[in-house]
């Protein structure tokens, strides 16, 4: 696999030395799950992402909507998995896109996460925030239906596990919305991955 780090449009993220056999399975799953959660947070997100491709200067890596779809289908759990892998440039482009969108979703993310916190503490009724709880449940429902629709059938995860994943992804998206989000997300993808 050729590493094309010196190209000006790529980020200053370097591939860990051990990963000589290309992008690991778990990384492809992770990045696709993040994109799926973003889609569940904002129904327009896919269109925004397609606009972002141009704004971030990623047309070379992701030339079209179909190419983008193909990149997302490198997740081995996908129904349309074609045994294709991601190149490092493509992974970098996706990381850049996730982080850029995460910054825009910041307010909603904070609301959903604090609602989840209030649910755990049992404060929803007392604070009269049933409406926010409904938003959170909506997000989880949308994520569940996207997950079941896109992943292979029978679903690799149970309903309960999908819910857990949806909530966990909220925290992850929040953490990559910061200034150093790209570095943090990039490193977290490779953390625990098998080369």
């Amino acid at each position: 696999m050729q590493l094309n780090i010196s190209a000006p449009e790529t980020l200053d993220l370097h591939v860990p030395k051990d990963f000589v056999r290309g992008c690991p399975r778990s990384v492809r799953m992770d990045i696709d799950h993040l994109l799926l959660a973003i889609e569940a947070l904002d129904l327009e997100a896919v269109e925004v992402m397609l606009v972002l491709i141009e704004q971030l200067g990623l047309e070379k890596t992701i030339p079209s909507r179909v190419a983008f779809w193909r990149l997302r289908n490198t997740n081995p759990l996908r129904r349309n998995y074609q045994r294709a892998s991601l190149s490092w440039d493509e992974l970098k482009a996706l990381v850049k896109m996730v982080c850029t969108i995460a910054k825009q979703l910041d307010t909603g993310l904070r609301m959903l996460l604090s609602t989840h916190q209030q649910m755990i503490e049992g404060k929803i009724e007392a604070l009269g925030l049933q409406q926010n709880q409904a938003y959170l449940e909506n997000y989880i429902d949308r994520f569940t239906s996207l997950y079941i629709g896109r992943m292979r059938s029978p679903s690799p995860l149970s309903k309960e596990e999908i819910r857990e994943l949806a909530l966990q992804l909220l925290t992850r998206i929040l953490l990559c919305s910061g200034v150093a989000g790209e570095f943090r997300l990039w490193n977290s993808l490779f953390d625990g991955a098998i080369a």
Partner: protein
Amino acid sequence: MIQRSYSSPSCTLLIEGISTGGDVLSILTSFACRFSHETEPVVGGLDLLSALVKVVGAYAQALKSNTLVAIPEKQVRLEPEGHLHKLSVLLNEADAHSPKQLQIKLNTIQLFDLMESLDRLCCDPTTLPDLKLVTQISDYRSQSQLNSQAVPAVAGVISLAIAATVLYFIPIPKPQPKPAQTVPVPTKPLPKVSTPPTPSASPESSPTSTASPN
């Protein structure tokens, strides 16, 4: 004297220092980190600030990859407590007479805000350029994992030793004298009964069903 502040919705980081030349704040005199839900700020010098950067950076990174880390740092500790995160800071370490332990509970959003303020400081090239972002946690994780990985191996060796000791006391069973073998009786072939071939049964009555067309 230069003051710089890095703020996020629930956390404000105020840096005070001196510049040695140009715009760059290169010597830190003190910093204060204030949380919106906590009256007492975290105040200290460069040691505490770099410990804070290290611990919070590694913890947040581990949170994202769903692993636990043990960061060997005396002054600052950050550990999960239920669904919250407990930040314990040892203030006034230099002044041995009145060391003070400050404990602040943070939820995920507040932890993110703290991380974000510190990240902004690390990414700012004009303030303390030596302060680096912490995103690599493999060094910390390996320590905590080594202990948990050693447990099954040690348990396996111990259980093998116990089993060997117990089995040592069990007497070896003596071979039983074999019962006298009975001579096998040769099987007698069955007398052949030759059955005369029966003449093929003549069809008694061929089905003569005359279909009467109606």
